[in-house]
C-alpha cells in the first residue's frame, strides 16, 4: 500500500493545475463582460470617440481580447506576467511589493490566530459542557456574527482616535523596532484574527469531540489513559484532517479576501490591487492577481489534503 501516497499527491497537484487553467478562462470571460475597456476608463468622462481610438491604438487594445489573452498565457509560461495596461509598469513589479505586504500581514495573522484557535478549540472539546466551553462557544459565535468592518472601525475609533495608543494607518507608520511592529500591526492582525479564528475554533472543537465519542477512545479511557493523553495522543491524530481543512480554508481568506481590512487601515495589499485592476479593466493585472489568489488557495487546500493523507494510516 506504500505506493499510494505519491500517486495521491500527484493527482492532487494535477487537479490543482487544471483548476488554475479553468479559473484563468473564467476570469478572462468575466472581464470581457465588464462594460468599457482601459482606454474608456482612463479617459473617464473625457472619452471622446477620437481620444478613445487614439489611446486604444497606442496601447494595442485594438487587437481582439482573446488574442491578447493567448499572448498573456504564452508569456506566463515563460514567467512573464505581462505589462499593466493602466500605467505600463510590469505586472511583476506592481505585484511584488503588494504581495510582500499581504504575505507579511497574513503571516503575522497566522502566527497569532492558528495557535490561539487550536488551543481554544481543543481545550473547549476537552472540557466540553463546562462553563469554559460555554464561554468559548458563545464568544466564537458572537465573533462570527460581527462583520469585520465593525470590528475594524470600532478598533480604530477606540485605540487610534480616542486613546491615541495606536496609529490609524498601519502602513505609513515607520516600523523600526519590534515594539513598532506591534504598534503598526496590532489592529489589523487582531481584526483578522477575529475573522479567521472563529471558524477554526468551532471546527477543531467539533472534530475533537467527534473522535472523543468513538469506541477506541472509550477503550483508551478504560485502559486508564490520562485526559490530556487521551486527547492529544489518541483523539487528535484522527481529528487532524478536518482541522487542517478548516485551517486551510480560513487562511486562504487572508490572501485575497481582506479588502475591507486593507481599506480601513489603508494597507496596500494585493486585494486592493485586484480591485483597482478590475476598475481600470487592466486584464494582465486582473489575471495575475486572480492566479495568485487561486494558486494560494490551491496550495493551502492541497497542503491540507496532504496532511489528511499522511495522517491517515489507511492511506499511508
Amino acid at each position, binding site marked *: 500500500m506504500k505506493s499510494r501516497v505519491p500517486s495521491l499527491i500527484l493527482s492532487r497537484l494535477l487537479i490543482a493545475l487544471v483548476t488554475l487553467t479553468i479559473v484563468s478562462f473564467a476570469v478572462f470571460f468575466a472581464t470581457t463582460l465588464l462594460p468599457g475597456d482601459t482606454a474608456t476608463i482612463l479617459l473617464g468622462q473625457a472619452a471622446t470617440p477620437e481620444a478613445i481610438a487614439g489611446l486604444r491604438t497606442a496601447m494595442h487594445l485594438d487587437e481582439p481580447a482573446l488574442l491578447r489573452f493567448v499572448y498573456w498565457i504564452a508569456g506566463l509560461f515563460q514567467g512573464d506576467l505581462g505589462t499593466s495596461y493602466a500605467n505600463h509598469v510590469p505586472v511583476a513589479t506592481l505585484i511584488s511589493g503588494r504581495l510582500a505586504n499581504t504575505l507579511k500581514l497574513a503571516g503575522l495573522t497566522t502566527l497569532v490566530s492558528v495557535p490561539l484557535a487550536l488551543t481554544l478549540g481543543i481545550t473547549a472539546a476537552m472540557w466540553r459542557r463546562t462553563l469554559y466551553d460555554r464561554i468559548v462557544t458563545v464568544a466564537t459565535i458572537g465573533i462570527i456574527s460581527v462583520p469585520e468592518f465593525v470590528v475594524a472601525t470600532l478598533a*480604530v475609533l477606540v485605540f487610534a482616535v480616542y486613546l491615541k495608543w495606536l496609529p490609524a494607518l498601519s502602513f505609513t507608520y515607520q516600523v523600526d523596532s519590534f515594539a513598532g511592529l506591534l504598534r503598526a500591526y496590532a489592529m489589523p492582525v487582531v481584526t483578522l484574527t477575529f475573522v479567521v479564528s472563529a471558524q477554526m475554533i468551532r471546527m477543531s472543537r467539533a472534530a475533537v469531540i467527534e473522535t472523543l465519542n468513538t469506541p477506541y477512545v472509550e477503550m483508551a479511557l478504560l485502559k486508564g489513559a490520562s485526559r490530556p493523553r487521551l486527547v492529544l495522543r489518541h483523539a487528535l491524530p484522527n481529528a487532524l484532517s478536518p482541522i487542517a481543512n478548516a485551517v486551510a480554508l480560513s487562511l486562504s481568506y487572508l490572501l485575497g479576501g481582506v479588502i475591507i481590512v486593507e481599506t480601513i487601515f489603508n494597507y496596500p495589499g494585493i486585494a486592493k490591487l485586484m480591485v483597482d485592476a478590475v476598475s481600470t479593466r487592466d486584464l494582465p493585472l486582473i489575471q495575475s492577481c486572480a492566479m495568485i489568489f487561486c494558486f494560494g488557495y490551491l496550495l493551502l487546500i492541497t497542503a491540507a489534503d496532504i496532511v489528511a493523507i499522511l495522517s491517515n494510516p489507511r492511506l499511508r
Partner: protein
Amino acid sequence: MTKTPETWTRADDSMVESAIRRGANRRDLLKMLLAGGVSLAAADLVLGRASMALAATPVKGGALKAAGWSASTADTLDPAKASLSTDYVRCCAFYNRLTTLDQSGIPQMELAESVESGDAKTWTVKLRKGVTFHDGKSLTADDVVYSLKRHLDPAVGSKVAKIAAQMTEFKAVDKNTVEITLASPNADLPTILATHHFMIVADGTTDFSKGNGTGAFTCKSFEPGVRSVGLRNPNYWKGGPNVDSFEFFAISDDNARVNALLSGDIHLAASINPRSTRLVDGQKGFALSKTTSGNYTDLNIRLDMEPGSRKDFVDGMKYIVNREQIVKSALRGYGEVGNDQPVSPVNPYHNAALKPKAYDPEKAKALFKKAGVLGQSIPVITSDAASSAIDMAMVIQASAAEIGMKLDVQRVPSDGYWSNYWLKAPVHFGNINPRPTPDILFSLLYASEAPWNESKYKSDKFDKMMIEARGMLDQAKRKEIYNAMQVMIAEEAGTIIPAYISNVDAISDKLKGLDPSPLGGMMGYAFAEYVWLAT
C-alpha cells in the same frame, strides 16, 4: 477665543475667513454675522479669530502628511495624463506651470515672465530665467515646446488633447522665448495654460516616474496606488517650500480618512463627505476648509426628446427645484445656490445679476398643466456617480409630489454611468468638474456641436457670441457678452444647476496657510508648497 456662540461650527469659521479673503471689510462682516443672529460681542471674537488665522507667519520644517481620496494603479506623474485629484497634487508638488490662477481666478505668472499677444492669435511667452529642473538642467524654451506639443500626440492620451488642439504652432524663438500660434484667436490662453495638465516637463522626457520638474519638491519615491514622498527642493526658484518633506497617499474610505486625521496620523484629509463633517466639527484641534470652485451636479433634460421637447415642462422643472433645500439637506450646507448656468461665483465672469429661479410650486404646476404632463410618471435617472445626485433627486421628487407631479426616480449603478446614461437618458443627472474659463465651459457643454451638450441645446446666436468673445482682449466687453450668454443658458437650456458644490477638506489646526483656490480643493491641489506646520 472660546466664547463663540454655542451653535457656531468650524464651517462658519471658514465661511468668515473666506469672506475676508474675498475682500469683505469689518463692517460687512459684522453685518453678515448680526444678520445671522450672532451677538455683537461674539461677532468680535469670531472676527478676531478669523483674521488671526490668516495673519500668522510661516514656520520652516516638519514632515507634512496628507491623504487624498482616490488612488489606483493608474496614478501617474505625467501631467498630460493626470486625471485624479491625487495626480494633480503630485504634479503641483513636482512641476510648475507657465501661469497659475490666484484666488479671484485671475491668471498670474509662474514659469513665464509674461504671456502676451496683440491679436489673441499669436502669443509670445517670455520665460523666467534661472529656473532649473531637479536634475540640474536649466529651463529653456525647448522644454516648454516639448511639454505643450505632447498633448497633440494621440499616443500620449492627454486629458486636454481637445483644448490643446487649438495650438497649432510652437516655436522656440530664443532660449527664453516661445511663440504659440492658435488656430483662431483665444484671449483665454493665459488661463488655459494654468490648468494642471499644462505643467512643464523637461524636453524629451518619456519616463515620468521620477517626477523631474521645476517644482517645490523633488520626488523621493512614487508608487502608483500607494504613496509618494517628496523632499524640499533646495534650489527651488521661488525659495520655498516651508515643510521639509511631503508625503501624499489616498485613503479611499471616507471614515478611515477622517479617523486618520483625528488620530493625528495625517495633517489633511481631503474632500470629506458632508456627512462626515460632523465628526470633525465638534473636535478640538481640527478645522474644516471649504472651497467653492465650480463643481456642480446638474439635472439634465434633453430638449430633443419627450418630455423635454415641451418647453413648459423644462420651465416647470426649473421652478420645482427647491435650491435652498438642496443646499441645506442634500449638501448639508456645503454649497452655494446656483442660477442654472455653469460659470461659478468664484469665476471673474460670473453673472451675479442673474438671480436663481425661486421655488414656486404653483407656477410649476401651471406650467406642467400647460405642457400636459401633470399626472404622467416621468423617469429621472440618478446615480452615485454624480455626487449628491441621489439626495438631490429625492428633494426634487418630494417637491414634485406635493403638486401631483410624479417623478419616477431610478437609481442606477455608478459603474458605467457615464457611458450608458449620461447624455443619453431623457432626464438624468450629470456632474461637471470646475473648468477655468467660461469659454471652455461653453464650448464643452453648450455650443451646438459641443461633445457634452447635456440637454442638446442648440442656438446659432449663442455659438456666434462664443466665437466673438473668445478672441476679444477687451475684458469689459467680454464680460458683457458672457453675462448675456449665461442668461441664455439659464433661460433656454435644459440643464438645471441647483447648486455649486463646495469641497470640504478637514485639516489639523497644526496646518497653517491653507487658502481656498478657484482651481479646486487643497488650494487648487497646490497646498504642499505654501502651507507650514505650527510647532
